[in-house]
């Protein structure tokens, strides 16, 4: 089995890369079924249908009013229980550049499942009992290996995402999607949602717009003016 855990309701662009990688692993000979998993309100099904139009076998939608307001700890708990229930060898997630929480959820899910995670893959291969990813770091290109089962997150450098044809969209609509509630997963409602949140926002305020700075037109002396400014700001 091959699974993909999504956190958001809709299928985000970055999650599409995860779907694409799952499908191409199978097309390249990996013997596995692909199940898409998402947790979110009713409309989250749209994301599953979009993924199923791209390919794969079936979908799981975790929906429960008590999940509203869930933090990363709760989200990872629910996703881990769901993935355990479907059974899995590999969980593939998208990376996220803007949502800070996304960078903790894959590691948290992996921790709850008791398996390794390898993240920010720009390429991945699966063979006999292990997954190998390529990671482009600042100081080196790394090949990172994890024993299966494992959790992987993939970047936008993994390659083009397919566009489903009309026929594929229609076929996707016929694929089975199961809906699970917290009770189905045996998760206590008190542990999730706003009630179970381990963090609380105390205040939120718009940032004052940046004060307009000085703009000068270079007449040959701009370099000296920049240097003066840097000195005044104690940057030089």
């Amino acid at each position, binding site marked *: 089995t091959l699974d993909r855990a999504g956190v958001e309701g809709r299928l985000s662009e970055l999650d599409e890369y995860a779907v694409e990688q799952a499908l191409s692993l199978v097309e390249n000979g990996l013997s596995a079924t692909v199940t898409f998993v998402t947790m979110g309100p009713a409309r989250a099904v749209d994301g599953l249908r979009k993924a199923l139009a791209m390919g794969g076998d079936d979908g799981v939608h975790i929906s429960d009013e008590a999940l509203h307001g869930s933090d990363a700890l709760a989200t990872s708990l629910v996703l881990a229980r769901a993935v355990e229930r479907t059974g899995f060898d590999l969980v593939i997630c998208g990376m996220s550049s803007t949502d800070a929480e996304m960078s903790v959820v894959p590691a948290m899910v992996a921790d709850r499942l008791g398996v390794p995670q390898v993240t920010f893959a720009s390429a991945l291969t699966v063979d006999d009992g292990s997954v190998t990813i390529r990671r482009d770091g600042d100081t080196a290109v790394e090949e990172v290996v994890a024993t299966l089962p494992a959790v992987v997150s993939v970047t936008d450098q993994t390659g083009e995402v397919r566009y489903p044809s009309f026929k594929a969209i229609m076929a996707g609509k016929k694929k089975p999607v199961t809906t699970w509630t917290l009770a189905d997963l045996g998760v206590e409602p008190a542990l999730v949602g706003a009630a179970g949140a381990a963090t609380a926002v105390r205040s939120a305020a718009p940032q004052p717009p940046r004060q307009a700075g000085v703009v000068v037109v270079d007449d040959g002396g701009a370099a000296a003016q920049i240097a003066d400014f840097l000195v005044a700001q104690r*940057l030089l």
Partner: protein
Amino acid sequence: MSGVLVLVETVNGTVRKASLELLTLARRLGEPAALVCGPADEALLKVLGEYGATHVYAVENPDLEEFLVAPKAEALAAVVRRTAPAAVLVTADHEGTEVAARAAVRLDSGIITDAVDVVAGEGGPLVTQSVFAGSWATQSQVVRGTPVITVRPNAVPPEAAPVEPVVETVTVDVGAGDRGSRIAQRTPKTGTGRPDLADASVVVAGGRGMGSAEAFALLERLADSLGGAVAASRAATDLGWYDHDFQIGQTGKTVAPQLYLASGISGAVQHRAGMRGSRTVVAINKDPKAPMFRFADFGVVGDAHAVLPALIDEVERRKG
């Protein structure tokens, strides 16, 4: 006073600047304690003591070096269980964030990521995050367990506060389940000799307006005069003028240096997403209508090829 545990990161045995920033922040919340993954030698202890670490916990377990993330998370959780700190501070980079995430699960503690500021508050640290691409600031608190907080590099300048640290070697049991991922092969990229983008207090960035790959040599010279790093816009990296590793923005890196100097960069929203947190912005652009000027503290309407060489001379001259 209770302790505040800082996960220290080292590069080739040297403490990262971001870790010194965490020690500085930790002093606002309690007595800084440092967790070192590996042996704590004289040089390391000297630096940690200089920046105020009253305790140093050295976890000497080869698993921490050999396997990624999970063994460090176990080490962190183990020291938290033993010392019950008021908070845990970790650098908000890829590995730090994942170590913090796993430790939070093990401790069933709330985690707040990517903080730009942390201050003491009633009922625990008050953590400021910059959200919605920097347009809003929120303050949050952890309400369950030991607050685990990841902090962006450059949130504060490191400040020395010398003490003599008490050193303790800690043994941690790493289970088989935590020995699942490792680096099989590492091909180093040729080092630039410049600070890492994430740590750099000065970033000198160039865009399409630089005109060529060769023109980036000017930015490198300026960066070297200022002790900074070089970066680029996506237009410049897509043109192959500078490596993708140095791209700033939504699909590149996020930086928050003391000084961001943008040369020949128009200031598209996707670019700004990666440099909004910069304390001071200087822009050089030949188009007076370039959006970047609206986000610059000091702007020069001019040709980068004229302004940059003159600026390098000015900086060199003033440094004496």
